[in-house]
């Protein structure tokens, strides 16, 4: 039985198959409308995450399946002291597949060791969030037509942003990838990613502080939010939160075919006026998130649709 713990669980070839399937779902949704009839997805969310939970649930409902689960630890047996391993054993008797989000890193790994159904890691603390990475890859491949030969700007909180770390790990497997790391000094990409991933694999990158300097040469700009919960004091957060604001004026510096992605939710880092720009694809990205999760559910349940 197969689970999804990390975006690197799938080989490049398997990822291509998954994305081909997602694109077929996008083109022919009716073909898949009953593919999971009679199947149940359990969403075990030990911490609230409306977007990720609803995206998984929408994916299962689009496939004609059913959903069940809880949306916070408070409404689960965790408050009674039940372990993850006991909960997943029980859920395995109720559902056919599950998506788990947990504040503790590695909780989905514990779940998959005891589950008799496929487990999807829907985010574990600051560790992994593989379905977001699959979403990002599918968005780039669908709208850019390729995942290689790209110059990618990563902007904002590169220190704590796990989506950025996962995306880097996933993209370095493709040819001719180049990164421009745009962040204030305090939120630089950690050395374990710079040295252990980029330097080790000889991936070209440059670090800049000004977004305007990087914009003219990018194929893709991946914006991130400065997350309040990562800061120990309010003062530092306030100083950092509006460090980057992408607005209409800055977008004039960007190439005409550059895409702007964002894992959402956004706060101030992308001005609302940019939403109308055809290069702003972050809401399309949300839609691709549903397609890729539909493809993932079908793949993990080993359901083939002719």
């Amino acid at each position, binding site marked *: 039985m197969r689970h999804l713990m990390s975006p690197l669980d799938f080989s490049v070839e398997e990822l291509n198959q998954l994305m081909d399937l997602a694109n077929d779902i996008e083109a022919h949704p009716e073909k898949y409308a009953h593919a999971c009839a009679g199947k149940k997805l359990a969403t075990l969310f030990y911490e609230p995450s409306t977007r990720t939970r609803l995206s998984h649930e929408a994916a299962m409902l689009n496939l004609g399946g059913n959903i069940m689960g809880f949306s916070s630890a408070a409404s689960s047996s965790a408050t009674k002291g039940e372990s*993850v*391993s006991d909960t997943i054993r029980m859920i395995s008797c109720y559902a056919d597949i599950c998506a788990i989000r947990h504040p*503790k*890193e*590695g909780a989905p*790994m*514990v779940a998959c060791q005891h589950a008799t159904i496929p487990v999807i890691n829907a985010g574990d*603390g600051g560790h992994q969030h593989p379905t977001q990475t699959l979403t990002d890859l599918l968005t780039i491949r669908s709208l850019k037509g390729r995942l290689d030969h790209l110059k990618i700007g990563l902007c904002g909180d590169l220190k704590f942003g796990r989506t950025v770390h996962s995306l880097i790990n996933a993209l370095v497997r493709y040819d001719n990838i180049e990164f421009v790391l745009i962040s204030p000094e305090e939120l630089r990409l950690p050395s374990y990613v710079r040295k252990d991933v980029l330097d080790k694999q000889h991936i070209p990158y440059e670090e800049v502080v000004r977004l305007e300097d990087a914009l003219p040469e990018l194929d893709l700009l991946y914006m991130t939010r400065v997350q309040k919960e990562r800061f120990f004091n309010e003062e530092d957060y306030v100083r950092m939160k509006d460090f980057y604001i992408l607005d209409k004026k800055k977008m004039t510096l960007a190439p005409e075919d550059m895409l702007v992605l964002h894992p959402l939710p956004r706060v101030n880092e992308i001005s609302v006026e940019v939403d109308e720009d055809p290069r702003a694809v972050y809401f399309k990205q949300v839609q691709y998130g549903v397609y890729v999760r539909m493809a993932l559910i079908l793949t993990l349940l080993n359901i083939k649709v002719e």
Partner: protein
Amino acid sequence: MVKNTLNIGKISEGFVLDHIQAGKSMEIYKHLRLDKLDCCVAIIKNAKSSKMGKKDIIKIECPIDIIDLDILGFIDHNITVNIISDEQIVSKKELRLPKEIKNVIKCKNPRCITSIEQELDHVFVLTDEENEVYRCKYCEEKYDSSQS
């Protein structure tokens, strides 16, 4: 004049762990769970060594198949493991870094599931042999021996 010397006799079957860094023998005693064995164990601390200045030695009198010595590769792969049979050294075991270590070291990451999940094994996986890097199987936090 008779010098004060400490003599520990030969063992007929078992192991002699030599060239242990001075002061590390009790740690090894604990990790090999020698306290659980009903056999004769001698720990020699701070023995003179031409190579190391001072060293520790552990002699274990036991059947050679009852102890798993792989963990020694993680603790210190410079230790010499002599395998004894009929009071003679019959072979030396080459120590390698174990691929996986279970319940020997603990994950220090407070955000790791091992910090709250009941009776969960602490498992570390060798992710970079060249640089001797072990990471927690669950949260992938790097093990930092200076924090132990």
